[in-house]
Structures are given as structure tokens and as C-alpha cells.
């Protein structure tokens, strides 16, 4: 019923052409929007161990990351953050995939994967640093097995592929995971990453969140075809999953990780989901999309469906929901407090890490800048017009 109704990318005339036949990729859904459990013979084994307690824990994470998202959006509205890219609607895709990873795996994401970072153990305040503008990275990538957000669309897919080559060279069974959007699939870098990964059978999972939009452009601008079809063309397995179904996302990610660990090479996952909010807090999506579309997807909300399923199995009730909400509020409070307490960076930081070894050019500019700053010390009492005007600029 409504499970089949999840919006998938349009298929156009070019599909029907006789000379380019190809079987449609499979679409994996294990919990329908109604909360009803579906069976999928290929993927059932991968979630055989996922019991209701685990699902409840996934539910909790999804609620918390949504709460973080709401709080961060509020902080932005209140002027405490310069910008924020909401993940509203993509909680299942991010939590479902990230929670399947091992600590030794390494994740390379774009800017919207705050739930992934949360699942990797990144302290919530660290999520805000770049958006508050105090740093270009919120955390040390090696502390959490996760690179900090990549702004250049698609660039991180190559980094993930290279990291995977490193794991392969090391003889490790660790896997690299690249998160990217539907828009990113058009960038040359992403195609090149698929080429390299396939060529070297690199242990990397390409996790594409097709949230239907790249700022104001619907996915059909990028592709008339289903994005998952790219996979076969580049010589790797591809799977399309209901990205709002945390259980299905868990299953397909595990399958892909499993293949990569066993030396079976890369996998392309298309998680079909929806960006319920604006592109960022600077965006006004009413300019380019209909309320009806948003309403359509609201009925497929990833949290609501897990709520329904867990209630149907007796794992969750109103009291449980309230309890989780309360925990989420605690996290949100921590986030807010941390945000407001975040110190501004020191001007000295400007020159600190441009190079890792001494650099005469940097040394000279640092020295000149310090002399410049020194001019303003005690400027109040100075009669020098230049120094005296610093306040006015």
C-alpha cells in the first residue's frame, strides 16, 4: 500500500529506448510509513539481530538529533549561529547508516550530516563551531573516525576512496564511508570517485542521500534517471533504500560494509529521503516548492513511522516517548549552553596551522601583524590618529 507510494525519481522516455535496457535496481523497505513491517528476503539476514531494544535506541537517537537540529535552528534565528543546515527528515538515513559503523571505520561527509557526527560520538557543541564561525573544523577527525564537514560538493567522495585505498594497503578491514547528496552526483569528482573505487575494488561505501533537492533544484535537474543506476554503470552494486526507514537503511548499510570488509569492493547506496526544511537557515523553500510536496513527505516522516512500529510491538508508549523527549531536551540544553559559552578564537590562531613546519613568509606576516596590533595597545591615551581610529572601523 502506501509503502510503494514513496516518491522515487522519475523515469523518462530514455528508459524505454530499446538499446539501453537495464533492470531496475531493487528498492528496500522494511518498515512502511504506516509502521507496518515488510519482509525483504535478501536483506532480512542483515538485521536478524536487531531487536526491539535496538530499534528503540535508534528511535532515541533520531529524536535527539532532531532536537539538536531544532535547537540549532533556534540558535541561528536568535543570532547565535551564522547559519545552520537542517537535517529535518533525514534522521533515519543518517542514524541508520552511521550506527552500523565500527569505530575503526572512517566517515567523510558533507555539511548536513550532523546526525552522523552525533552517532560517531562527536560532542554536540562541536557540531556548532563552524556555524558559529569560531573555527573551520569542529573536531579532530581522528578522535571520532570522521572528517569534519566538507563544503565543496562531492570532494569528500574522493577522500573516502583514497582512505579506503589506504585501508586496503594496510590490510585492514576498516571501511570508508562517503556521504553526499543528490546534487553532488553531478560533480565530476563523484564520478571519478566511483571510477577509482571500482578500479581498485576499494572498501568504500557511497551513501547518497537523495533528499530530492539541491538548494532550489529538484533532483530531476541532475538526473532524469534513478541515481542508484549510476552504480552498475561504474561497475559496482547499487541499492536503493527507503531512506526514511531506519531498519532498511541499517540492513543495506550492513550489507555494503560486509562486502567491503570481505574485499568485495565498493557499493553505492541511494537513500531516498526528503529535506523537510530549508536548504539552510538562509533559504526560503517556499520560493521553489509546493506545500503539497512537503505534506506528502510529512506523512512519511522517519520518526513517526518508527514510533508507530515500536508502539505496535509494545516497545514504546506515551511514557517512553516523553522520556526520550526529555533526554533530548537535556542534550538541547547542553548544546545551547555550550554554544553561548563558546569563546571567540584568538587572533594569533590566524597563522598557527597554515603549515606544519616553519615558514618564513608566515613568520614575517605574523610578526608584522603583532606589531600592528601592538600599536593599539593603550590607544586610548595615544594621540596618533591611525591607532586611535581602530574602534571606528
Amino acid at each position, binding site marked *: 500500500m502506501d509503502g510503494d507510494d514513496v516518491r522515487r525519481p522519475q523515469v523518462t522516455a530514455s528508459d524505454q529506448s530499446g538499446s539501453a535496457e537495464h533492470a531496475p535496481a531493487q528498492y528496500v523497505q522494511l518498515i512502511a510509513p504506516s509502521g507496518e513491517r515488510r519482509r525483504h528476503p535478501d536483506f532480512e539476514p542483515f538485521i536478524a539481530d536487531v531487536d526491539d531494544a535496538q530499534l528503540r535506541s535508534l528511535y532515541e537517537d533520531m529524536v535527539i538529533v532532531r532536537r539538536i537540529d531544532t535547537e540549532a535552528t533556534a540558535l541561528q534565528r536568535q543570532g547565535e549561529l*551564522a*547559519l545552520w543546515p537542517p537535517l529535518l527528515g533525514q534522521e533515519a538515513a543518517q542514524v541508520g547508516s552511521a550506527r552500523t559503523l565500527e569505530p575503526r571505520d572512517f566517515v567523510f561527509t558533507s*555539511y548536513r550530516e550532523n546526525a552522523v557526527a552525533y552517532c560517531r560520538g562527536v560532542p554536540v557543541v562541536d557540531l556548532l563551531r*563552524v*556555524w*558559529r*564561525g*569560531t*573555527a*573551520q573544523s569542529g573536531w579532530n577527525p581522528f578522535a571520532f573516525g570522521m572528517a569534519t564537514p566538507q*563544503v*565543496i*560538493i562531492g570532494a569528500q567522495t574522493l577522500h573516502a576512496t583514497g582512505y579506503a585505498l589506504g585501508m586496503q594497503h594496510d590490510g585492514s578491514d576498516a571501511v570508508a564511508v562517503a556521504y553526499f547528496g543528490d*546534487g*553532488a552526483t*553531478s*560533480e*565530476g*569528482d563523484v564520478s571519478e570517485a566511483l571510477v577509482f573505487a571500482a578500479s581498485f575494488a576499494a572498501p568504500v561505501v557511497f551513501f547518497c542521500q537523495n533528499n530530492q533537492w*539541491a*538548494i*532550489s*533544484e529538484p533532483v530531476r*535537474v*541532475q*538526473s532524469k534517471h534513478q541515481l542508484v543506476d549510476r552504480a552498475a554503470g561504474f561497475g559496482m552494486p547499487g541499492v536503493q533504500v527507503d531512506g526514511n526507514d531506519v531498519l532498511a537503511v541499517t540492513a543495506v548499510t550492513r550489507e555494503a560494509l560486509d562486502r567491503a570488509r570481505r574485499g568485495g569492493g565498493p557499493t553505492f547506496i541511494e537513500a531516498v529521503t526528503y529535506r523537510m526544511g530549508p536548504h539552510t537557515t*538562509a*533559504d526560503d523553500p517556499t*520560493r*521553489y516548492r509546493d506545500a503539497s510536496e512537503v505534506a506528502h513527505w510529512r506523512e512519511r516522516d522517519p520518526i513517526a513511522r518508527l514510533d508507530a512500529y515500536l508502539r505496535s510491538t509494545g516497545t514504546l508508549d506515551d511514557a517512553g516517548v516523553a522520556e526520550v523527549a526529555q533526554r533530548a531536551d537535556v542534550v538541547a540544553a547542553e548544546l545551547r549552553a555550550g554554544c553561548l559559552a563558546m569563546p*571567540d*578564537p584568538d*587572533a594569533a*590562531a*590566524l*597563522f598557527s596551522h*597554515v603549515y606544519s613546519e616553519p615558514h618564513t*613568509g*608566515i613568520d*614575517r*606576516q605574523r*610578526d*608584522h*601583524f603583532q*606589531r*600592528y596590533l*601592538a*600599536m593599539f595597545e593603550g590607544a586610548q591615551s595615544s594621540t*596618533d*590618529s*591611525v*591607532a586611535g*581610529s*581602530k574602534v*571606528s*572601523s
Partner: protein
Amino acid sequence: MTSARMTLGGAINAGLRKAMELDDRVIIMGEDVGKLGGVYRITEGLQDTFGERRVMDTPLAESAILGTAVGLAYAGYRPVCEIQFDGFIYPAFDQIVSQVARLHSRTAGAVKVPITIRVPFGGGIGAVEHHSDSPEAYFTHTSGLRVVSVSNPQDAYTVIQEAIASDDPVLYFEPKRRYHLKGNVELEPIKLYPAGARSMDSARVVSEGRDVTIVAYGGLVSVAAAAAEAAKADGVSIEVIDLRSLSPIDFDTVARSVTKTGRLVIAHEAAESGGLGAEIAAGITERCFYTLQHAPVRVTGFDIPFPAPKLEKHHIPDLDRILDGVDRALDRPNSLSGVGAQT
């Protein structure tokens, strides 16, 4: 001759509209330029007027935006490509440097490449990484390209039209933090080469002065003008020049000024090393060696990747840093007083 008060961003929009009205071979292409009208709304309303064919929302791939623009140029079109932010021009670098810049030369003039590349550039808006770059020097070092920047609504309106009408490829750098700067714009038709001198070819003397010349462009022109204002109180008379054309540089105008003042300060946000300031300093030293009273002074961004928003105020030259540079040029007390020339 009508005139109107508009913002710098609005003036670009009006100029684009005019260019599209006058020549139906002008087409706009880029990410989010159509229905949304661009993230800065610079192309707002144009798709409504001219349709999806002439204002094209493209897939998310900058190399392809420029590469297909080259093909459209072959087909006789005049594409105006928007690069959403400065930091996203690099994926298109190969197509710009190896194709856009060289095609006319490669084909001994057979293929014209009237492509305009619009690039919002520079910092000052507190943006996350890759949204505040000043990449102009990469392009001014690239033979075959023309590079311009604008600092006020009038030039924005005129120069965008001249760039589009030019048969050469033009990089048009928009100081994004001045999009809201307001001014009066004479809406007269542009004079096209060879009918008259184009604004895009020449530097503009913003304010005359006797003691020091400040050369700036884009977002720093108004800071330089403010510096000139502030210095007056101090008895220092500054001539401010808005470069407008970053490649080729209008050395005649700058040299004329330096011949008069004997002192030169160059300001830009881009890194000092290899920035436009180096070329201006070298070129003016060649032309004005005997009239220069002091080595040209560069007041620029540091040789660092554009820093986090909370630090950008230190990185971008402001009024005080420019005035300190003026003091250096004038051999007045300044931040480097007492520092040996060779450190």
C-alpha cells in the same frame, strides 16, 4: 536619459535584463539561477521574463557549466555563467584556463568566446569556508581572459553589459558584501567598443589627492574612500583609484596618479604573495621608478586560507590597516616603524 536608485546587486540584475533584451543570444546558466533567481537573487525575475531556455538551472557541476558554455559559444551564443560563490570556481578552472582563455588564440581568431563568468567574491559576510575567497589573481595571470570588478551600482550596471557585449571572455567579480550598497544609476545605453571607451577597460579616479595614491577594487574601494576621508582630518590628501579592470590593468591611470603623489598603497583581500598588488607594485615601479618616494605598499589579506568568520575582521584590510599602509608610504610613524627593511 533616465536614472534610478538601486543596490549594486539590483544594478547587476538590471544590467543582465537589459543585455538579454537587446540580444537574444545572451543566455544565463548556473546553479539555482532560474526559479530561485540565485542565492543572492541577482538573476531574480529573469527566468519569468525570458523562460527556462534562456535562464537555465543547470546540474550541479561547475566544469560542465563552463564547458557547455564553450560549446554554446561555438554555436553563436553569449553565455553568462554564474559561479555561486568564489570558492566554487576551482572545479571549472581547467575549462576556464585551458579552453575559455585559449580557444580564440588556438583557432587564430576563428572561434570567439564571448562568455561572461559572474563570480560573487570576497569576505566580510561571516560565511563558512569556501564562501569568501578572492581568486582573481589566478585569472589575471591567465592570458586570454579579461578580468573586471565593480564597486558601485553604476559600474555594476554598465560593466556587466559591457562584459556580455565583449567578444572576449570576461571574469566579472562581484563584491558580495556590497550587494546592498545603494547608488544612483544612469540607465543610458552602454557605449560599445569601438564606439567609445568602455568603463570596463579603464580605472576610475574615485577622489583626487596629492600625497598618496590608493589603488583598490571591488569591496575595498569604499574602505579606501573612507580612509581618504579620515586622512583629510590629518592633513593627508589621498587619491583613490578604483581599478575596475584587473586584467589588463589600466597602468596609465595609476602611473599618472603616482607621478603626482610619488606614493602608492595597494589594497586587496586576496593573499599578498602573488596577489594583484604584486603586479601593480612591479608595474608601477617599472613605470615610475624615479618619481616613487617610497616602495609601493601592499595592504592585503595574509598568506593564509581565508580564516573562520570570527577572525575575518583581522584578515580583511580595514580602514585602520589601510591608514597604517598610508603612513608607511608617507614614512610617518606606523606599525613597522623601526623594523629593518629586510625582515
